[in-house]
């Protein structure tokens, strides 16, 4: 452990927390997206396929959110103790929404009649959409800055509610729906898959427009962001990001045109990943913009080192058995095949 104490632990942990958040967004993104698509997918067989395509894995996907929250608590307690009160209504809203959609996975199969099932389907849709919206508000609220004084949140009730954060909220709903549609292109077949190709076209265009909107708006929020994105030397680091997004978007479109099964999903994931890299570039070195850096918020080195040992050993193992779980349930999900 003494060797670990010589490392730049806050930086390493910043990277690991970012990894957990990205893993969460990519993984739970598509299963929240499936819930959002319930709005336009009404056929009961197709809904069963949609649910069953994620039923064995959604729980693991959501665990990355627990790691994000729990990890923040453990290694950046000051960030945890200021971000959550600042974004209070969005966090509570997200949690309640996730409760609803989480239980709907099982409950919809337990309802006695069609009306009961439709109620849980509605809960699944509303929960998924609200969770995405709240995450977008929270993300926007963090980006636009949190007013901290004397280690406490010192802003108002609705600081997180601005046109910018609303745009982030809409962007996340549309983006998750895109991930969901692309996941289903990969995992479903027949008419559901066919419809998802056309959903993905519309959602893909909408997602790119929203990304453009958020990207142009973000540097206007803060002089630091501006400096980094639009001025030399920052621009040397940042300009590849939008260029790569455009390249991936082109590949995404090719995938849809060629009716590829997996390419649209991989490209959609890549677009999300690039957006997060962009976010990281904007925020670094702050964990709670505009005043608290990774180093300000860090738990003492003993705490960070102690958990780092576990993370270095366990995260690779977790990734292995998560991959195994996905492997076990590989292949197209068929109508009426309930993983018996």
């Amino acid at each position, binding site marked *: 452990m003494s060797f670990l104490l010589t490392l730049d632990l806050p930086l390493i942990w910043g990277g690991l927390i970012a990894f957990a958040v990205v893993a969460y967004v990519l993984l739970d993104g598509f299963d929240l997206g499936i819930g959002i698509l319930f709005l336009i997918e009404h056929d009961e067989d197709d809904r069963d396929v949609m649910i069953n395509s994620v039923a064995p894995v959604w729980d693991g996907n959501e665990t990355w959110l627990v790691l994000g929250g729990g990890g923040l*608590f453990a290694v950046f307690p000051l960030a945890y103790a200021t971000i959550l009160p600042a974004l209070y209504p969005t966090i509570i809203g997200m949690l309640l929404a996730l409760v609803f959609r989480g239980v709907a996975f099982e409950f919809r199969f337990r309802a006695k009649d069609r009306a009961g099932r439709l109620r849980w389907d509605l809960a699944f849709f509303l929960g998924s959409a609200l969770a995405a919206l709240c995450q977008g508000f929270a993300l926007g609220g963090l980006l636009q800055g949190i007013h901290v004084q004397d280690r406490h949140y010192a802003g108002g009730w609705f600081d997180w509610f601005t046109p910018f954060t609303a745009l982030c909220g809409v962007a996340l709903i549309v983006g998750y729906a895109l991930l969901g549609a692309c996941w289903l292109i990969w995992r479903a077949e027949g008419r559901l898959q066919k419809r998802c190709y056309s959903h993905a076209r519309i959602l893909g265009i909408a997602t790119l427009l929203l990304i453009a909107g958020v990207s142009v708006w973000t540097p206007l929020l803060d002089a630091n962001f501006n400096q980094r994105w639009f001025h030399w030397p920052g621009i040397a680091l940042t300009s590849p990001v939008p260029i790569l997004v455009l390249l991936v978007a082109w590949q995404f479109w090719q995938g849809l045109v060629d009716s590829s099964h997996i390419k649209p999903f991989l490209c959609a994931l890549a677009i999300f990943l690039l957006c997060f890299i962009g976010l990281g570039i904007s925020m670094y070195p702050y964990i709670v913009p505009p005043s608290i850096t990774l180093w300000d918020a860090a738990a003492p080195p003993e705490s960070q080192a102690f958990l780092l040992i*576990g993370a270095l050993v366990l995260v690779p193992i977790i990734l292995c058995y998560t991959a195994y779980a996905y492997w076990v349930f590989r292949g197209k999900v068929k109508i009426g095949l*309930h993983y018996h």
Partner: protein
Amino acid sequence: MFGLDAIVLARVQFAFTVGFHIVLPAFSIGLASYLAVLEGLWLATSRQVYLDLFQYWIKIFSIVFGMGVVSGLVMSYEFGTNWGSFADKAGPVIGPLMGYEVLTAFFLEAGFLGVMLFGMERVGRGLHFTATCLVAVGTLMSAFWILSVNSWMQTPQGYTISPDGRFLPASWVAIIFNPSFPYRLLHMVLASYLSVAFVVGAVGAWHLLSSSRNSHARTMFSMAMWMATLVAPLQIAVGDFHGLNTLQYQPIKVAAMEGDWDTARNGDPLILFAFPNMKEQANDAEIAIPRLGSLILTHSWDGEIRGLKSFPADQRPYVPIVFFAFRIMVGLGLLMALVGLASLILRRGGQIYRARWLHRAAVCMGPSGFIALLAGWTVTETGRQPFTVYGLLRTADSVSPIGTPGVAASLAGFAIVYLIVFGAGIVYILRLMARPPVTGEAGPRTDAPVRAAGITPGPATNPAPAE
């Protein structure tokens, strides 16, 4: 004390959400182990009844587990939303322990739950059994870490305090294995096993009442009653040791549990019943047995136990809650041991399967484990007040700067959502329990009311009747 300020509301919210939550992991801990035992017995003996019971209980497990995941997610964020100062100050010590819980337990459970629920046909028996065992191990690991955290808040050690008032870790071994941890962990794991034993016993008894020859019901009832016979007395013994540990480290809590205001000279009485009166600092309507309190707590007739009045008033918890919750827990524990004893006696000549009064009693005792568990947690948590970290960090200094309207609104939100969601969950669980287990019991999903029976495989949707 009961003005509805933000602190009280934040406490009510925590109590409400954690109260709902704790039942579910307790259910999962016990049921996961039971499922592993059933599947192991099936693999070892090839007896169909064990597979049927496994499939019967795994459907209930999937609902319980799902509810536990989402209510637990709420808990992991509530420290920050409502208890920001606590998170900032105690985070460096307890945060990493909770991080380890996520890394060693939550991922393990979630990773193998899918295989356990839906993977029987895909991975083969050996791997499936491995998945079941890993889920069970995950639930126990989770208990290990979270009880270490809770115990550290009760009996903190291995820390230093920084100039700005934060707890800094000095020795991780001392932090994790703090003085009350081994007792609390054992007490909680046994409580989980006992709670599930009484649920399984109640379901078995319910179906025995309608048909005492139902072999599936017989098997589960018998297994549950063995647990009651063996584990209930063990739990009472563990509880006694836990109490002695509490007397050593948190004497105020024990005084509140006993309703003991004055420090008696010649051995303390055991107060069976009373209404503790905070204002008068005395008990109303007290019924007590002389000297027995000292005997239980110090294992001596003359042992001295410090009364509440010997501690400053601003360090005392609200006594009536601790006092009554303790009596509920102990009373139910004794009843459970009694049921276990009765079932042992009735095993001679197989009367255990015919004694309808025992079956009725077992049905009534179905929720007793969970009620006792909630009462026990109420004792230990309200008994720790007015501190979050015992003796060091006051609850009043632990909250987030969130105003009363915000905490009130979120509390209302949690109350409504939890009542709807968990209300529905309880209905679905009871509905599954009301159906007798049958030969060729279907697994999760295959039995779900999915339209035409022709789509799913025949044997699974049209199980043969049990008898």
